[in-house]
């Protein structure tokens, strides 16, 4: 177990080093004088100012050296400051993680809560009416981009019907407005974000269920007279969910980085919208910090997925 842990940790470190260096190098290779990213166009560009900024950000050093300075600070938890506004990058990430995190988790929970029953039913009732309806729904979910779904939900549920007084945009923090207000602001973007993974999980689980239900041990269980629900829940779901768990792990990482469009549509103060702003502003410290953070979470989540795997599948444990 210790060996596994150490191996995972090593992988995490290597991944973070690779991602952070690539991001840094790409940012450094962007055209234009980096001073112009730091100073607004109308700001005086006297020699003293340029010299000060050059020293402060080590702009006269090679990329590797500058990366080294950044890494030295980053391992101590200092991700630098935003060029625009001067906020510490760490503080910015800390403010925004709850929003993106909640969105990703909610979207995943919604997706799983719909995908699991429909995947089971679809696998069990393969080819029948309910399976066909479910498959049609999967097609829609996979075809409709999340931002289209978001725009549609805003129009239908807030503008046209005023359903439950849901807000069109904005985020209500639990600490400020309470949990119900928070959920009201989160539900529409989470649903929009969940549609594609929901469809994907449903299809995946359905396929695995179909295969599992044809296994000999399932036939044996039926022959023993066990109920369908018991067989589905106890014997079929667990082995069928291994792929699903893997995909969920990958998907959470994708969700973390993929909330940009939804955060823009719904005007949410998450990591995605801040990353987009950082890119548009050439605020490279922000971009670097957020990308590395997302990479960190992504690897962490997938490591957790591996451990869950081991918990579910004894064969992997023994290996």
């Amino acid at each position, binding site marked *: 177990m210790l060996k596994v842990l150490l191996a995972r940790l090593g992988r995490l470190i290597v991944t973070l080093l690779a991602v952070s260096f690539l991001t840094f190098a790409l940012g450094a290779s962007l055209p234009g004088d980096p001073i112009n990213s730091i100073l*607004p166009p109308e700001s005086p560009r006297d020699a003293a100012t340029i010299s000060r900024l050059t020293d402060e950000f080590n702009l006269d050093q090679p990329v590797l050296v500058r990366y080294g300075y950044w890494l030295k600070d980053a391992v101590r938890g200092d991700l630098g400051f935003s060029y*625009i506004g001067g906020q510490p990058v760490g503080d910015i990430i800390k403010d925004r993680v709850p929003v993106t995190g909640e969105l990703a988790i909610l979207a995943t929970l919604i997706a799983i809560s719909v995908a699991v029953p429909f995947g089971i039913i679809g696998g069990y009732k393969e080819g029948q009416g309910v399976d066909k309806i479910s498959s049609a729904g999967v097609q829609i979910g996979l075809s409709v981009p999340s931002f289209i779904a978001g725009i549609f939900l805003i129009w239908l549920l*807030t503008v046209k019907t005023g359903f439950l007084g849901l807000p069109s945009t904005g985020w209500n923090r639990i600490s400020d407005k309470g949990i119900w207000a928070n959920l009201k602001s989160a539900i529409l973007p989470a649903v929009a974000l969940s549609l594609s993974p929901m469809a994907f999980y449903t299809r995946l689980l359905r396929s695995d269920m179909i295969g599992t239900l044809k296994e000999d041990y399932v036939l044996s269980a039926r022959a023993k007279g066990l109920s369908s629900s018991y067989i589905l829940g106890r014997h079929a779901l667990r082995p069928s969910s291994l792929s699903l768990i893997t995909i969920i792990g990958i998907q959470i990482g994708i969700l973390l980085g993929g909330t940009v469009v939804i955060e*823009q549509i719904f005007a949410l103060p998450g990591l995605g919208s801040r990353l987009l702003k950082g890119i548009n502003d050439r605020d490279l410290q922000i971009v670097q910090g957020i990308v590395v953070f997302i990479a960190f979470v992504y690897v962490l989540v997938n490591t957790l997925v591996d451990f869950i795997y081991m918990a579910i599948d004894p064969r992997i444990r023994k290996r």
Partner: protein
Amino acid sequence: MSKRWRNSLALLLALALVATACGGSDGDSEPADESDNVEVESGDTDDGGNDAPEDEPEDEPEDDVVAAGTEAEGDEDTEVVATEEVGRYGGTVTYGIEAEATGLRPWEDACSSPCINMATSVFDKMVEFRSDGTYGPWLAEEFSSNDDFTVWTFKIREGVTFHNGEPLNAATMDAIYPIWQTGAQSAGPLGSAGMDVEDPTAIQSISEYEFTVTLTRSNSALPAIFERPQLLIFEPGAAMDMAEGFSNTPVGTGAFEVETRDLDNETVMVRNENWWMSDAEGNQLPYLDSLIFRPIPDEGTRLDSLLSGTVNAMQTLRQGTIRDARDSADGLTLYEFQGNNVGGGMFNVAVPPYDDVRVRRGLTQMNNQEAVIGALGGTGISLPGTQWFSPDSVWYSEKAAAAWPQFDFAAGQETLQGYIDDPARSDGKAAGEAIEIELSCPPDPTLIAAMQVLEQLWSSSGLVDVNLTNYDQQTHINYALGAPPDWLGEHGAHCWRWSSDNDPSTELNRQLVPYNAENAVANGLPETLVSPTNFNNYFDPEVLGALNAAIATDNFEERYALYETVMLAFAEDVPLWYSGHTATLIATEDSVVGLNSWELPDGTLGVGHPAAEGRWNQVYLDE
């Protein structure tokens, strides 16, 4: 995509199984503000360039010239009117703005329309803009100058305090000035206004409530600078103590104080109970209990937020959203404005082939402005631009409009052919070869549509190979800016935006100085008289002379004639091109009243809401 079409698509999804939907956001939106900084720097213009066959006789049909005062059929400027109504206390306006304010440090952080709405609620200006285009008292009770406009005296009104209780007086200005001297946003405007920002006495108190501003040259329009967001009045002690933290808890004298600031989500401001201004009945202002700003970047959902009641006011600078708002106007009040701000682009006059006026003129003559305006979604709303002033501006010149190279494709080809056939052409290519140009705009959908129209027009001449490029906004600006010491930039034909409704000197005088030391010295000017933000590297000593003369007098007719000279020079040298003037909108629920009727303390009518910059200190809810 129009809102109707989007709704129909959504309905289809609800009713049927749609295989694919690939909509997009509004394709009719206006181009984003690329920059408020326009510096025209002329390198050596017209190297061997012949005059284009554009010396059109003065009796050119004036039917084509837009008369002063004209508005496009679809231009529905909201009238600014005085009101006898007395406001009611209470309520909250939740205002959807285009983007979050980068920061609320006026001297340091860039501030465009969304931010100006916030900043002018927290901070006050020394002077305010009247509806007649003049400047009137705000924090400054009165202001005057000496005979040659080199020394200005401002008298601050008494009894004004900052949100933290500190008094505002002339000593405050002594403390603010060192911050302004080095501020990223403040130093430039002060310098271009004629102040020596190295001089510690350029702003100084002379009594408890009076301070002077001393300039190195005449500036009859100095008050205009003090109307700008860069010189909003802030509490200097708090600014020094808090540094970057000041941005989240700014301290001003404004009608509202920041209560909470959740970046990119909402900024809540509450009534300043000790604001210095009262209404005509003597009632303490402001009326509103609170003002909440919500950045909502997506145009469609910002309007939807208003329609659903999530917000009760929203702003837009996009033509397509204005159309959608007009279509949904039941229960809404639309405060529209179309002013001087005009889209278009610039040529990098310092590099071939743009350094030859025949190229610039030829390309401009082949620019079908109506088609470009159509691509931007402004058909019927915006008139084609011919100068920095819209037809309903007091500065508009019919003469300059007549002189501007109108769309004439054949004439454009002929003009450009003159360059192409010239064996001494500046780009070094052989006679007869097409010119190569790079047309670059930020990656906004409507800008891309507009540049594609231009690309098709120019390419179809058979004389131009157009390379289209898109860069993020910051890179787009950086390419135009360039790097020291030459500041030439790396751009060719570059989307840009020009002008404002402020005094012409605030933009033109700042931008039309030499672009680098070499250019200054070559024209007999001090090598320090440069500005890197002269983005198109256009410099004409006669133009600079006219601009300097225009701020050496306060006689309107004289100033008008001088700015007309500048616009005529633009028409002659064509360092830039225009699309259309930009309409802007603040849309509110009907209950939100007062955006177009606010007054200055002297009872004169304010300017309303130019560029969707609302003044909220006299707004109330009429419920």
